[in-house]
């Protein structure tokens, strides 16, 4: 399957980031992907939607989807929104 394509997530995943994030994920579709969340300082509801959508899409496509080296802020943000699984579960998939 080859090395997953790494997509670096921007530091501020607020509502303005949701559009670009969607575009970059759409472009990465069909291949294994690893999202680097090390720089993320803030994550909002709309980017969470996009990430969850991507996770489900990749699972449906049968391709590995992974979030790597989540920053503490990213993990905390996800936990706050009840989506702690997103960062931890995905690593199980590969």
């Amino acid at each position: 399957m080859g090395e997953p394509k790494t997509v670096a997530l921007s530091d501020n995943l607020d509502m303005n980031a949701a559009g670009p994030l969607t575009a970059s994920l759409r472009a990465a579709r069909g291949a294994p992907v690893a999202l680097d969340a090390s720089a993320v300082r803030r994550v909002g509801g709309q980017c969470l939607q996009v990430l969850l959508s991507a996770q489900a899409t990749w699972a449906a496509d049968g391709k590995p989807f992974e979030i790597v080296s989540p920053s503490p802020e990213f993990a905390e943000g996800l936990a706050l929104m009840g989506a702690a699984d997103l960062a931890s579960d995905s690593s199980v998939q590969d």
Partner: protein
Amino acid sequence: MDPLAAIRETFFQECDEQLAELESGLLAMEGGDQDPETINAVFRAVHSIKGGAGAFSLEALIRFAHVFETALDEMRSGRLEATSDVLKTMLRASDVLADLVSAAHAGEEGDDPRAATLADELKAMSGGEDDTSESEEDWGDDFDFQPQAVSFEAPAGPTGFVVRFKPRADLYAKANESALLLRELARLGEASVELDAHDVPPINEIDPEAAYLSWTVTLTGDMDETAIREVFEFVDGDCELSIEPIAADEAEAGGEPEFDIGSLLAKVQGDAPAATEEAPAEIEPAAAAEPEPEAAPEPAPTLAVVPKAAAPEAPADALASTGPRKTEAGATIRVDLERVDRLIDLVGELVINQAVLSQRVMEAGLARASAVAMGLDELEQLTREIQDSVMAIRAQPVKSVFQRMPRLVREVAAMTGKPVRLVTEGEGTEVDKTVIERLADPLTHMIRNAIDHGLESPEKRAAAGKPAEGVVKLAAFHRSGRIVIEVSDDGGGINRERVKGIAVEKGLIAADAALSDEEIDNLIFMPGFSTASEVSDISGRGVGMDVVRRSILALGGRINIVSKPGKGSTFTMSLPLTLAVLDGMVVSVANQTLVAPITAIVETLQPKASDVHSLGGHSRVISIRGGFVPLIDIGMALGYRRDPLPATQGVALLIEGEGGARAALLVDAIQGQRQVVIKSLEANYRQVPGVAAATILGDGRVALILDIDTIVSVSRGEMRKAG
């Protein structure tokens, strides 16, 4: 715009609304309003400001709002009686809060000594100095401002709530963020958050701007529902929200391990993958009461079943009132002013175009009863209606200016030592936004004037058998297509002897001039009347009533005064409802079509040769009822012709300009009277002396709108040179 700056801007806009709410609430209470909802609204306003300030780390604001809120909470819970003194302090606190907000808005946050003094007063009132000052230091770091920390004794009732929250796309569009709301919610107590992501579509179908997620948060701990509701206050109407208490025993049963609550939720949601077996049987009723997430489009039913005993009296009332507030929030939208102006502009074009079309049809010789002409008539009516409706969008209640006045009155009253009560009427009267904006300064000055000069000192009032407290009344109403604003006081009225004396002394009138009472009263509007010797700190500031008059005239308005000795004075301003259209007298001058604003025209007359006198050069005066006024040939003033029009061949418009100066404008003929759409000349060409703006007539030609004041002052200058 930087998104954070945009959010900040929204916050300050909201602050203005909250401050207005705060002040009107406090004033209502001062006026004897004992509705618990009023104090709740006041409390909510301060709380919201604090909440928003917290998000931007505006520390001075947070600190003051916190102390203020604590005092209000004491009042809300009945521990602090809302006496007149207490309310006066609260009102001053609201002024300080407003100042802190504007300072924060301007980025000049600093320590306001007044804030510190008032904060001490408020603390003394609420009797809670110790616990507030203790935590004062760390507010900045974590804006931990649960009101229950300073408020109620733990009520016997629920010790937790299930909050279901589903944002709509609008919530994000207005720069609010679910993550922040959840974070605030988590601060209120022990939170367990369950995310429902079932609606999220695959990545190729997702709309990044939409909202697909919903959350169910189970909060346990000591809190009241109001606090939860306040978290969502800014997004009211932009999300589906239901808040249900967990009954006391159930919360206890589920209070220990968080898993139990999680599994309860899982059961409630029905579609969660793993409902834990150990979920206690007795929590089933609560589960049944919780509606299916998808089947709950309106939170209202869940609100209605909140048991009264579950929360203290006042917050329960607050809940009941959230229903109408929600619809209110949904019924208005914020629109960029530029968009409205663009629309108004386009409608103006439409009106002109429609007029052009009608004229063409007439010229084509089509019968009035022809289908085309009838269709055009309908179009004309529709256009008028559209124009009226669009103007109505820009119309705003004068409340936005009126509500700045109570503060002014308080300040001026304090400075002059005169007790004053401000009575406002007709705050809902609507007028164009531009008019409102330009009304604030003259109104401010007139109110200052009414208190400083109009009202007598308490001793004098007592001697005259009047109540010590003076009354200044501010009223607005519509009259024949204009808005009328009255500022009246119940003071001593104008001291005509003194006014006349000053006018003589200043050389404004001859010492032996015989003036009617009305004429004497109107002397105060003359430029140069206001003098240094009588300029006090308050009404002075180098502005006289002539400036007020000039700004009203610039708005196309009129002002006059009626004064009764011993009873008080009333200033009446009459203003156009909009500055986008104007009632004009259409005249022709040297084959050009011009428009003179009707408001400036006093009368029109046919000059007789015997009434016109030449002063040498081209300057002429005309005698009107025994007085002489300059006769200005518009054709020459604007450079349309070199030789003056013989006065008898034209028509004179007697006009009254700035400062009451009169002049007669000589034009060739009057075409008629018509409402015209004002087009800025500066925006489309450049400023032309003597011309205020332009309009487009039915025949498609541009007609200039005369700037009467400039024409008069220029020609006066020339006369002086010539004479």
